[in-house]
């Protein structure tokens, strides 16, 4: 909801106010889309808001999130193109006529904006890898949990089994020497930096965030459910 609100302000409300100011102060200004500029802003701005909201709703690493992120970017490019009138502006006042053709600059701006697509894709791949790692870890833990017997539950005596399979009494006693850890190359890991109370660290980008957050404000990655207060 917060994303929808901020994106509405950024791409609909503020541009409409600015365009109104410009057109009321410079009525001589003419661009390719100026006649219906408000409709264009509302349409493309609305699409940006919808796509961005759907992007943040989905978890990082999902195809949906990447798709909506790229869609928002595409609409953002169209929105910029329309706002700048394709880069061509004409001003006619009295005997003067002035025409600026900055379409090449607009194309460079669009190229710069499109670079954010790399970030969307990068977040997708990073999030996907993280999810895969977490899934693998979860699977391992599940396997481990299956291997370690639960001591609290008493095994049922098997009436057909007269003798247990493993008996400590059957093992041979052998003397052995306990080697120091540092002799076999073990180095203790540096102490972890203490995380302030009420904060947690994003596993994707490493930025600290309040524990109440569901989504990282820096990279947009979802926090694990158990980490949210």
């Amino acid at each position, binding site marked *: 909801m917060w994303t929808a609100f901020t994106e509405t302000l950024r791409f609909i409300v503020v541009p409409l106010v600015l365009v109104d100011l410009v057109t009321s102060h410079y009525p001589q200004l003419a661009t390719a889309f100026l006649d219906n500029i408000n409709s264009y802003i509302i349409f493309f701005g609305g699409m940006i808001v919808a796509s961005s909201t759907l992007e943040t709703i989905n978890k990082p690493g999902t195809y949906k999130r990447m798709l909506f992120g790229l869609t928002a970017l595409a609409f953002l490019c169209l929105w910029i193109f329309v706002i700048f009138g394709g880069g061509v502006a004409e001003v006619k006042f009295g*005997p003067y006529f002035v025409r600026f053709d*900055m379409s090449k*600059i607009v194309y460079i701006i669009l190229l710069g904006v499109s*670079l954010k697509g790399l970030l969307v894709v990068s977040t997708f791949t990073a999030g996907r890898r993280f999810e895969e790692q977490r899934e693998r870890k979860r699977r391992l833990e599940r396997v481990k949990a299956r291997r370690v017997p639960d001591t609290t539950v008493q095994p049922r005596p098997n009436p057909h089994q007269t003798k247990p399979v493993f008996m400590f009494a059957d093992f041979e006693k052998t003397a052995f020497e306990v080697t120091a850890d540092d002799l076999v190359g073990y180095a203790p890991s540096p102490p972890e930096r203490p995380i302030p109370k009420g904060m947690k660290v994003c596993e994707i980008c490493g930025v600290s965030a309040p524990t109440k957050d569901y989504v990282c404000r820096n990279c947009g990655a979802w926090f694990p459910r158990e980490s949210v207060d």
Partner: protein
Amino acid sequence: MVARVRILQISIAAVNFVIFALAFTSIWPFPNGDFKVDLPSSNEIEWTYDAGVVHVSAPFSIDNGGFYDVDDLLLTYDVTNYSNALLASGRIHIGTIPAGRVTSDTIQFDVPILQLYQQGFGWMVFNDDMLNFVVGVSCKYTMKLVDFEARYNVSVPWDALIQQAAIDSISQSGNQLTVNYHISTSSIFGGTTTLRAYLYSGSTLLAQDSDVIQLGTYFPGSMTFTLGSALPDRVVFQAQILDFPFSQSISITPGMIT
């Protein structure tokens, strides 16, 4: 992984910052008035006449106070009269103006007025007109990424070369008839010429006289004729004003003679 995302973010931010700087420095000089084109106004245009040709010169200056060089600067002009006949057209290729420099030059062109007159387009010789100057400037800016084009439309009044010859008053004293007249010619003319006046009654020539008149100004003069019994009903003025033969007939009614 974290480092990769961070580097990507920083790279994108750096690229976008450069693009923003490029766009800003491209646009800013125009609304801020750092890039100025001073095109000639109607009172800055100079007119001279020589051997049947009107020479026109109009100064202009272009101030490139922006951040980048102005490239491919081209100045064009078209001059048409009120009836949209093309009198002159041309292009001045100025080229490049480095950032922070001002260039000044003059638009110069000729109107072959005598040639036009001989071809039957003599309107501008004897009548006022309105010349329409369309001066255009086109150039490229910011390493040729921005195309700029400006057009300026100015109408300049054209005073007829030979504006008026008229009788102010006619007085009679006995058989002497004095005709007070004036003749106006354009200020681009200079020198003197001879004005001849013929008094007619019907098709009969009653008397004639001549006077030396000053060109390029409003010239008042008078001529005295000795008449017989008949009174004239028209006077014909004739003169060779530089390259243009001039003839005008003015009716004289009895009420004009005092």
